[in-house]
């Protein structure tokens, strides 16, 4: 079972939660905006690819992020409850399925920005089709992290079914259902004329 630690996903957003979010007024980095990416996962058994799209209507206000962070301190269930009570701020689309994003945060970096999203449901249980697959209970959300440069190109990670829980050095751990990590390649911010 893979526990993602400080380097990954939410942590970057939560751990640097007091860094100044980028201005939503920026034409090149502000919402509304859409990212397209190719999700790829590989293992000894084979390789899978899927195209995903994430649209952000607006980034989650700092006050609501703080409320969800506080809820997380009370455990995974409290975090999920708080997340699902938060307003929808975007959508993640895979094929003909669309999921609600209720956590969206961007943090400026030297080369661009790091963006994290939390979807209020799992997107897919990777490996769930194998005979004898493990139980899905508790993997109630999906987590995405994008690392974008200033030109709108980047890469990222997707935890398609995740359990967010308190713990570890940073106070946040993201446990992935999938045995193999999902990489987001060719991440592109869509330019709207």
């Amino acid at each position, binding site marked *: 079972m893979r526990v993602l630690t400080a380097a990954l996903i939410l942590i970057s957003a939560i751990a640097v939660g007091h860094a100044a979010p980028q201005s939503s007024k920026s034409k090149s980095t502000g919402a509304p905006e859409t990212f397209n990416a190719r*999700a790829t996962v590989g*293992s*000894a*058994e*084979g*390789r*899978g*690819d*899927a*195209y*995903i799209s994430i649209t952000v209507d607006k980034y989650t206000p700092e006050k609501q992020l703080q409320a969800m962070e506080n809820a997380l301190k009370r455990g995974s269930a409290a975090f999920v409850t708080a997340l699902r009570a938060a307003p929808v701020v975007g959508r993640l689309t*895979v*094929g*003909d*399925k669309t999921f609600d994003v209720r956590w969206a945060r961007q943090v400026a970096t030297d080369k661009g920005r790091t963006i994290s999203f939390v979807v209020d*449901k*799992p*997107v*897919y*249980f*990777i*490996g*769930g*089709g*194998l*005979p004898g*697959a493990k139980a899905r209970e508790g993997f109630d959300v999906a987590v995405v992290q994008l690392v974008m440069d200033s030109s709108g190109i980047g890469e990222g990670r997707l935890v398609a079914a995740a359990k967010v829980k308190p713990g570890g050095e940073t106070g946040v751990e993201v446990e992935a259902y999938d045995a193999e990590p999902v990489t987001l390649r060719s991440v592109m911010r869509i330019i709207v004329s």
Partner: protein
Amino acid sequence: MALRALTAALVLAVPVALVGAQGKTTAPESFKVNGQILGAAGGVASAMTMAIDKYTSEDDHKALADTLKTGGHAAFVDALRKAPAIGTVTIGERTFTVRWARTLPVGRDHRRVALVTDQPIFFAGAGAVDAKPTAGYDLAVIEFTIDSVGLGKGTMAPAARVKAGGPTGVEVDDYSGKRVELMTVRREMK
């Protein structure tokens, strides 16, 4: 869910319909296979190896076919799992046991090979949040055609159940409703 009837060109039905047409013995033999399945969002590709130590004898085949006709899928699965292991399907680090395998000539220089494993190999689409239950899909059914050089293509129902019926006497219902396309099949040189 639509039960997809396979035509005479496919899998179990051919041996059932053509009992006695088993081709000359080519086993032991093995095949390297590349499969893929595509959906609305993307696709999955996998390489696998199918090894056949020997093909199912005419008598054993007839007994299994009769069991399916009289007892249905559950009885067929029970009988299949009691049959001797005669081959394997290997995908990555996972190996599945083949307990039924037939081959028969097609035309002048092709032959058809059909295999049934005693467990499902993969439930395509079962990772979806709203996936249907997997119970009852107890087998995998593989069929391909190769030429005299040893090259060919085919299909795989990676999680299937079978029942007697339809124009050929056998119907295969695949969990996902969509088959894995075996894009390349290559008989291994000894």
